[in-house]
């Protein structure tokens, strides 16, 4: 899923400064699963905003709503009748949702309440970590299913740098060295010879570095 977390309250407060009528808009997709921008978080943020304005003696009307997703037009369309009455929509979706709202409603101020972090997993309750970088050209068949693009701090392709110590990354002892994990796994799978092959320079043209990406599936288009 896409993992996000709420921006610091002060940042959100300053972003909406002076606005009188705000739609706090949650999303029931990934950000609900990672407890950043679902129905519950919408309720919390709305209460926080009202508290702030009460404290300052500045009136505000906060409307709470949560869509099934903010990355599909059919759900964004549900806002078309009411969105005009708001000074801004404070989206609690990932950056995708914020963008899509802005695309769909050119006359509406759209603001992000979250920082979108990564494509990741829930390691356990309350702990998420990154697994994929969306580089556009998957090499996981070469690396035992573990991604050095997303999980090596230097994104190395041909084994661990000289800073891999006791299975940990040199930049932070809490981060496992993914190359140690890859090594251990390929050893267990009896595939260590895969590591002897030199992975060539990667084609970053299919990653975000190649410009915004798009997929068109003619077989699915109507």
């Amino acid at each position, binding site marked *: 899923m896409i993992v996000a977390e709420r921006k610091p309250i002060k940042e959100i407060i300053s972003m909406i400064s002076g606005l009188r009528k705000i739609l706090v808009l949650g999303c029931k997709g990934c950000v609900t699963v990672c407890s950043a921008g679902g129905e519950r978080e919408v309720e919390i943020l709305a209460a926080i905003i009202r508290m702030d304005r009460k404290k300052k*003696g500045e009136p505000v009307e906060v409307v709470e709503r949560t869509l099934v997703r903010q990355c599909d037009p059919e759900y964004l369309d549900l806002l078309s009748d009411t969105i005009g009455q708001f000074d801004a929509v404070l989206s609690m979706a990932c950056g995708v949702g914020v963008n899509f709202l802005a695309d769909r409603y050119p006359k509406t101020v759209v603001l992000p309440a979250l920082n979108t972090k990564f494509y990741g997993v829930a390691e356990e309750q309350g702990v998420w970590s990154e697994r994929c970088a969306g580089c556009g050209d998957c090499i996981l068949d070469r690396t035992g299913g573990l991604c050095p693009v997303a999980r090596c701090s230097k994104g190395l392709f041909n084994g661990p740098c000289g800073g891999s110590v006791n299975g940990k990354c040199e930049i932070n002892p809490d981060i496992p060295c993914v190359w140690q994990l890859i090594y251990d796994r390929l050893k267990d799978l009896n595939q260590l010879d895969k590591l002897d092959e030199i992975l060539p320079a990667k084609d970053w043209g299919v990653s975000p570095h190649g410009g915004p990406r798009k997929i068109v599936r003619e077989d699915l288009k109507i």
Partner: protein
Amino acid sequence: MSSAFKPEVTAFCCRYAVYSFAEDMEALARAGFPDGVKVEQISCSGRVDVVRLLKALENGADGVYVVGCEEEKCHNMAGSQRAKKRVEYIKDVLSQLGMEPERVEMFFMPRGDEARFIEMAREMTGKVMALGPSPLRGR
């Protein structure tokens, strides 16, 4: 101002910890429980959620606290520990809003300890008294 200030405090209390005495508020008051503290019983302190605490503050409570079982002896395993984390969360929210984090607290008590329950209420009322009225009060 402080002489006229009567703190309004809401206490969210684990029913399991307080049921033996909290049904009779008049008796509690006679035993010294401060007026101005509104007791809301909940099935477990772990059930109190962030929104409920925030709304109490939003509606002008000068202080809010949660009473749960002793940390290691929670009737529902880790309920009171979860409640404590939520209280910490609210404290952080209050700080970020420029309000005193002490307006929200977590208390733990042995089941049925009425004297301790009264003591906690007085402690919280005293603390809120010192802080003065909530900036959200009456707005």
